[in-house]
């Protein structure tokens, strides 16, 4: 059978972010995939060497627009690893509150987008409506809906006011019933099962070989969670569960994320209720020469920072590794043998993260058929529609 090359990109079909996939297809089946990234390379590692240790926190906060806390979190952990310091307990709790609230919003964002691409616009609207409440919570806690600027080496920048806490708890409680309903709707839907089960399976040995991290690895049965394995901040102060699944398909990735959202809600509520008193910042000035490693569990997986100090006020080297750097190459293992109409959701299954822009085009190399981005989306949504009809589900 003849082969056709289907280019997807340079903007991601689901998250609408810059990356380029070259799918080689035989009929409907994908037989080969090539990935190209780098359209949005901003040289933050280089930039960080020109900033002071305090300024770098703001620079790395701009790496990701969705999980903007994960990079400052990993960076501050790395700086605090250069020399032995113990961050005050109140700061640790507030760090957990910010990181977990962000995880709720990030998982809801992915759930909504995944629903949209499968043709479930109701899921999209419900999930994003809930996410809006969480962004309001972030605004109350930090003053910003995104890019919170709460972190600094040695502590946090802003305290949480005691009078804000009851309102925040009320808001978080208000989303739980709707989230339960959404969870039930997503987990029990036969059409969604048909569309996501056994699709894009990442086998356990592949997850280990590709060194996958976060929900992508946990859905494949690899029990890895930095929060559990290497409890940083206050994650060892309260009970919580690590969510894992076995199959590694898109459905399991979805299940892991939905259940993690509930765990995060529990953690945020616990921390807000049991917030200890005390200082929030160590206020250290000089950072001695040395090197430090900080790794934290971002919504998408382990975020890894390596910082080397030469005794001056700026990092001599700052290495940033985002979770998607390890998760993205798993496409090579998951997409071969699948159909083009499933490609969008498999590519989105790892919750990739680059930046946000919009544009996509798909065209046949022979120039016979030209798909637009909307066509590919339509293809995915039509497949769900067909399954619905076959099953007799309205």
């Amino acid at each position, binding site marked *: 059978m003849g082969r056709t090359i289907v280019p997807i990109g340079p903007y991601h079909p689901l998250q609408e972010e810059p990356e380029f996939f070259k799918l080689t297809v035989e009929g409907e089946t994908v037989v080969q995939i090539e990935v190209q*990234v*780098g359209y949005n*390379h901003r*040289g933050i*590692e*280089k930039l960080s060497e020109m900033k002071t240790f305090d300024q770098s926190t703001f620079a790395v906060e701009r790496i990701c627009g969705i999980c903007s806390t994960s990079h400052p979190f990993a960076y501050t952990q790395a700086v605090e*690893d250069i020399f*032995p310091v113990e961050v005050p307990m109140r700061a640790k709790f507030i760090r957990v509150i910010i990181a977990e609230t962000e995880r709720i919003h990030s998982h809801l964002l992915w759930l909504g987008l995944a629903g949209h691409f499968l043709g479930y616009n109701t899921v999209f609207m419900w999930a994003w409506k809930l996410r809006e409440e969480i962004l309001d919570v972030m605004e109350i806690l930090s003053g910003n809906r995104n890019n919170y600027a709460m972190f600094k080496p040695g502590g946090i920048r802003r305290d949480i006011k005691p009078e804000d806490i009851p309102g925040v708890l009320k808001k978080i409680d208000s989303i739980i019933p709707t989230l339960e309903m959404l969870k039930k709707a997503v987990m029990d839907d036969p059409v969604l099962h048909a569309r996501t089960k056994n699709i894009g399976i990442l086998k356990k040995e592949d997850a*280990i*070989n*590709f*060194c*996958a991290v976060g929900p992508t690895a946990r859905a494949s049965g690899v029990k*890895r969670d*930095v929060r559990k*394995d*290497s*409890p940083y901040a206050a994650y060892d102060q309260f009970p919580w569960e690590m969510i894992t699944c076995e199959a590694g398909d898109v459905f399991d990735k979805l299940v892991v994320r939905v259940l993690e959202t509930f765990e995060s809600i529990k953690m945020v509520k616990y921390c807000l209720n049991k917030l200890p008193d005390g200082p929030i910042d160590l206020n250290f000035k000089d950072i001695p020469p040395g*090197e430090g*490693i900080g*790794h934290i569990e971002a919504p998408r997986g*382990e975020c*890894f920072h*390596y910082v*080397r100090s030469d005794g001056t006020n700026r990092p*001599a*080297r700052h*290495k940033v*590794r985002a979770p998607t*750097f*390890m998760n*993205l*190459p798993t496409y*090579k293992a998951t997409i071969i043998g699948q159909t083009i109409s499933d490609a969008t959701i498999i590519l989105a299954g790892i919750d990739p993260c680059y930046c946000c822009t919009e544009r996509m085009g798909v065209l046949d190399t022979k120039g016979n058929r030209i798909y637009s981005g909307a066509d590919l989306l339509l293809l995915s949504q039509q497949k769900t529609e067909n399954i619905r009809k076959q099953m007799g589900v309205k």
Partner: protein
Amino acid sequence: MIRSEILKNIQDNFKNDIKAFFEKSSNRVYMDISSSALLPMASYLFKVLKARFNIASGVDTRENFEILYHFSFDELDLIVSLRVVLPKDNPQVVSLALLCEGANWIEREITEMLGIHFIGHPDMKRLLLPPEWPEGVYPLRRDYKEWDSTAIRDRGV
């Protein structure tokens, strides 16, 4: 296996290759190793001891290049970093991409950012820098000047 056993195993198996052993804290260990020992040591850590390859980070220290290969033992809360020192002229080291798929991309990144050659990499091409970026200009090297006359910006593109 517990932490002390793991570290002892590594030291016993590679005692001639480890030039320096430094326990920074209870969960960070750094080992300076010779570049010829990298592949056997990395495969021992990854395949036998089932460590996870976190990432590699390349550093230009002005005198020479350093690559740190970070491996983590998740259930022990331990990160072991292997440090390989490479000379300034003609820096090259064996590739780990065939050992573990997770090392594929980072080696491509280090090649274009620091100009270190990875021997035996299966798919060596640019990862992040655009195709127009001139050959032999490495942005993370110390001698890289922002207004490099060969840099793209200065050519008015």
